[in-house]
């Protein structure tokens, strides 16, 4: 899975370049994310602007990344499509993840 990433201050901005985070790509996605977390990144913005489909395996991988932070730092989401957001509502994960309209809003929230 191709994932663009860059730093904005202490915040790591992660932008998957694939349209899907699903059962066939979740392990790869999680592996890359955990590597960045293990390198010391604790404030992470996951920008889903290119993603039009996530299944429960993909969602599980995102949850696993949150757990990898070990209660330190934060993992927030931005630029999520209404359809994809409905997965978070169906599974009630919208109560777990902060979701922002734009990347700037998400970065500002973690930089405050």
């Amino acid at each position, binding site marked *: 899975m191709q994932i663009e990433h860059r730093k904005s201050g202490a915040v790591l901005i992660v932008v998957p370049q694939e349209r899907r985070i699903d059962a066939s790509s979740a392990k790869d996605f999680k592996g890359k994310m955990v590597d960045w977390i293990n390198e010391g990144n604790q404030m992470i913005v996951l920008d889903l602007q290119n993603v039009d489909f996530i299944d429960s*395996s993909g969602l599980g*991988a995102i949850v696993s990344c949150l757990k990898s932070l070990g209660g330190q730092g934060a993992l927030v989401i931005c630029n999520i499509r209404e359809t994809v957001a409905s*997965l978070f509502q169906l*599974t009630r994960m919208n109560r777990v993840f902060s979701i922002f309209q734009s990347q700037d809003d998400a970065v500002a929230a973690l930089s405050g």
Partner: protein
Amino acid sequence: MNLRSSRTIKFAIDSRLENVSLLGLAVRSICSSLPLSPTEIYQIELSLAEAVNNTIKHAYHGQSGHEVEVIATVETDRLVIEIRDTGIPLPEQRRSAAVFDPDDVLSLPESGMGLHIIHTAMDKIEHDRHGHKNILRMIKIFERQEERGTCK
């Protein structure tokens, strides 16, 4: 079922997770001609993906080389999607409720959400077994549409 107004298409994939997106594309395309919202279409594709992922992972133990068959039938007021496989019959599982403490990060579920998604997103779920085939039938009911003369 009103046979005169139902339309059916059958497609099949080899039991590899990489193939599931192809089924999603096909069903999404079928749904686009029906009176369904973008979110409903997404959730139907999601339910199909969850069901087929379960089949590949559990009924076929993650092994390729087996067929997963999907039959989509459009009736006047509903879409019926059947997933058929010849793998190990899976016990009809109770859906797990999405119950967790959102503040207790370490207790959050990473798996087991598929059945909850299917049961929440679809209107009716039926399990069946014909001969050596397992059948999962998922039904989405929509507002009755005017009779259409031809398929789009």
